């Protein structure tokens, strides 16, 4: 019997990487009066629905997909967690 498992994956540029997008958005917000904004880094958010027999199997599959293509560890860092819908 298969169940549907929902995960979220949050990806950000590694700290050592210059985040050009974050910098551009910060500047725009500063130009528009948000001078208290000290820093912003922008990344990606994935909502992933996996069909599997157990949560462990679903998580294993997710980890495989993350390592396979979703995240490039040279330039990105990430975290994921199961969502209970």
């Amino acid at each position: 019997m298969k169940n549907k498992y929902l995960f979220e994956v949050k990806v950000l540029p590694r700290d050592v990487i210059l985040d050009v997008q974050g910098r551009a958005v910060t500047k725009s917000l500063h130009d528009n009066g948000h001078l208290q904004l000290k820093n912003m880094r922008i990344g990606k958010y994935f909502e992933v629905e996996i069909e599997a027999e157990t949560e462990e199997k679903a998580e294993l599959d997710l980890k495989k997909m993350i390592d396979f293509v979703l995240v490039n560890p040279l330039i990105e860092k990430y975290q994921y967690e199961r969502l209970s819908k």
Partner: protein
Amino acid sequence: MKILITRFLGTNCDRDVYQWLEQRGHQVSWAWYQDRFSFEGVDAVVIPGGFSYGDYLRSGALAAKTPVMDSVAEFVKRGGPVLGICNGFQILCERHLLPGSLLRNESGRFVDSWVELEVERPSSFFLNRPLGKNNIKIPVAHGDGRYFVEAQELEELQQRQQIWFQYQNNPNGSVANIAGVTSEDGKVCGLMPHPERALFDWMGSADGGLFL
């Protein structure tokens, strides 16, 4: 030489590369991204520029995970030479056939201009003739050309002569002004500039004709 040119959905420099290689006297044919190839009798593969998979997720990330790239990886394992131009360079990095990664340009802007490249590694499979000069003039056109590699790895690249070209005037913030790199044996090469756009003097430079 018999050369295969890969094509992904979103590749748009394929026909220019075809003409460039044909003008240089090579026998060229296509390699469709969904197909695998044995590469028997193939002398080299060129991965042209463009916007494969719309640059979705990360430039070159999805194209790196295709049957044709499985074949290219196998070809490289067997000592086959591969050249990646612009998006092709991004694809080779995502496939880990070359070290590093290409990030958004430091300016945040798409850069479209001529650049002077200092040739750091004078001998590789794809550029292997006495140039009679230190620099070559080739155009760049990219939004994600900032080459990145960790400090430790950069040192190793320098030691192993894997830095192929450096920009005289860095247009994108690449670490160490790197415009192109090669594998240690010089058979797998990647560069952000477009040599196929510098084939005849009327184009602005004929230095692309120095390759192959």
